[in-house]
């Protein structure tokens, strides 16, 4: 989504006047704007497109904007305004929920920057290259544990083995979290510096790879947990 094609104006359905894309109320007629053309979650909340978001600031914006357009305050308004309040509040809450979670925030940034992962199913099929070794080892270990269980081994034995098997995966996950943090900082610095798309692109791609790997790792850990729970 290059900035040159991003719309900057929306139209007020009440008076037909134009309003900035991130406005919530029409500058002409002061009515709440219906949620037609709108900015992304960051700009809707009045936040820069950065990955480090101060949680207290996010909460404050949710409260401030809710106080402006929550449906409670439009009970006596026209049907059009009520609908606008409902849609705008829903979008606000969706924005808040997405940006509150650090991982969802990265995924959302990738999506609006045009680098979305192709959905969780696809992501989990192909083993990311960086994880090949760990995944190969883990699958071998899991097979042996299953054989052991089928052979009637006591739960204590194979459970402990299963716990050991997840240690390298857990370690990998921690390394990923650190990676994500470092990349996020670099992204924010580029935004602050007003860097070009060409400069930003490599960081976004690195973030996308980390997210894909992270999802893969989480699926692996969930698989181990299922084996443990299925005891």
């Amino acid at each position, binding site marked *: 989504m290059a900035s040159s094609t991003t719309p900057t104006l929306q139209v007020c359905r009440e008076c037909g006047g134009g309003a900035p894309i991130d406005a919530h109320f029409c500058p002409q007629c002061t009515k709440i704007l219906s949620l037609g053309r709108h900015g992304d979650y960051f700009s809707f909340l009045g936040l820069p497109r950065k990955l480090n978001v101060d949680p207290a600031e996010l*909460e404050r914006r*949710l*409260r401030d904007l*809710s*106080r402006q357009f*929550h*449906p*409670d*305050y439009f*009970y*006596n308004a026209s049907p059009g305004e009520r609908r606008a309040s*409902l*849609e705008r*509040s*829903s*979008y606000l*809450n*969706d924005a*808040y*929920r997405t940006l509150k979670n650090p991982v969802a925030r990265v995924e959302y940034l990738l999506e609006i920057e045009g680098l979305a992962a192709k959905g969780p199913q696809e992501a989990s099929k192909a083993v990311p290259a960086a994880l090949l070794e760990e995944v190969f080892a883990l699958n071998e270990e899991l097979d042996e544990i299953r054989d052991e269980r089928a052979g009637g081994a006591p739960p204590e034995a194979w459970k402990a083995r299963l716990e050991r098997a997840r240690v390298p995966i857990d370690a990998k996950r921690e390394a990923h979290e650190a990676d994500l943090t470092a990349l996020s900082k670099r992204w924010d610095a580029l935004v602050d510096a007003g860097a070009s798309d060409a400069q930003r692109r490599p960081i976004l791609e690195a973030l996308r790879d980390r997210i894909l790997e992270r999802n893969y790792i989480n699926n692996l850990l969930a698989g181990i947990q299922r084996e443990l729970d299925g005891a």
Partner: protein
Amino acid sequence: MSKVVGIDLGTTNSLVAYVEDGAPVVIRDKSGDGLVPSVVSVAEDGAVYVGREGQRRLLTDAQRTAYSVKRFMGKGREDVRHEAEHFPFRVSGEAGGVVRIGLGQKEFTPPEISAFILRELKRRAEDFFAEQGELDNDVDRAVITVPAYFNDAQRTATRDAGRIAGLEVLRIINEPTAASLAYGLDKRHTGLIAVYDLGGGTFDISILRVEDGVFQVLSTNGDTHLGGDDIDVLLMDTILGDRARTAEDVQAVRQAVIQAKWDLSDRDETMLNGRRFTRAEFEALIAPVVDRTIGPVRQALADAGLEPSQIDEVVLVGGSTRIPLVRRRVEEVFGKTPHSELNPDEVVALGAAVQADILVTGNREMLLLDVTPLSLGIETMGGVVSKIIMRNSTIPASGSEMFTTAVDNQNAVDIHVLQGERELVADNRSLARFKLRGIPPMPAGMARVQVQFQIDANGILSVTARELRTDVEQTIEVKPSYGLTDEEVERMLLDSFEHAEADFAARMLIEGRNEAEAVIQATEKSLRHPDFAAIEKEELAPGERQKIESVMAGLRMVLNSKDRETIQKWTHALNDATQHLAEVIMNRTVKAALSGRSVDDV
């Protein structure tokens, strides 16, 4: 302008409140009673008795009397099969359909029974406003509360009940959140609050952050099948065993165990079934029920990302929080003494009134940001649920999902909407099945139908769909899995007018009887006057006493008939017959007072 009220439609008791001069007030009857027992009894002649009168009829006409109907709201026949055994009334309904409750010859859906209770509350409020001298005492709009953990079907059933009762339901709000609003009024506190709400039939825990007057729910959890009722059933089982009893006997035992339960809230022992029953025995018996609340508490804390020690204040709501064991357990979990300054029975209705006031007056001092308690999803391949809106999302919330076609020229797609946290369709609550129609003919996989799910501020779902390639809006046929269609609600509203007439007649009859009884009592008092012999001899006409006695006997004869006019006719006759006697007694009293003797000496 017509009045707005807040209503707590409870499992055991219901209340109505309103805001006066900025403060919420519970509307009480003449004796000061704010609670209307959520009991509805339908007599053989079709008259409907609600509240205390309904409760009395549990002991005389149990099979025609429904209570704890909230437990059946939004439920299907299969959901309640096991539970129905505990109730004296008939529980039926078609397979896969909504529950029906049989009272005598008639069958009612749970929203219809609830509507009787709502109408009683509406009437109580209207009488109150009329007495206050309000010109427009019409009550036609209300905020009604539901347990936070109610699903979409249960919320919709509650809204339907309001509509059947002739109320515009301004908003459905969650009980613990309403309670926090009531508590937030006099204390401008900022911080993290846990509301522990154990009522007659349901348990809720909500964690809120309060700041700048915004009450933001961070998470909620609960059990819509856990409350005082379960404690009563446990106690009843210890007494009744397997012996067969009449429905009325069972109700007598039920009322006895409820009394014992109340006694043990401020005493160490009481009598139950003719023997000593100690608080220690009681607590040992109910501990498993109380412990079932702890899992949801921990889950809500985890979902809010908080430790128990981070909670600043704990608020207790619901009658069952009067039980000392409940208070101790809550204190143990949070490590602090819970608040219970406000009456736990009334605090929810007060909060509902505050919310009603916010909606109609545009008062912006406070704002409630609530969450949806359960995740919303749709059925995908292999009977697995794909989640679209996660639980504890702030509402209003929306989500969308893209569908396509599987065969060439397919013009419709079936969609199954579910609510719950489990992976498999079978383990979740089926909300509705939709058929998307009118998809333009195109090769398989080409259609791009975007289905938009919108949860409004009531926590109620609506669905719209659009085919993106042609921009054609899709028609959606909604078949609620366990709800009523709009047509059914409309018909029930019409039916309710018939009941309203029967209700009115019944009330007039009761009032007529009360008036007759009052006149009889006054007459008896006159006839027992210490000076009556002298009065009769000196001042009454011959045969006057005999006339009074025979008219009084006549009134007594007709008193229990159902003919209000006859009762009224005889009441007037007795009034007329005693008028002279009353004047004589009055004169004597006055004379005695003037001559210096005290009235007591007369």
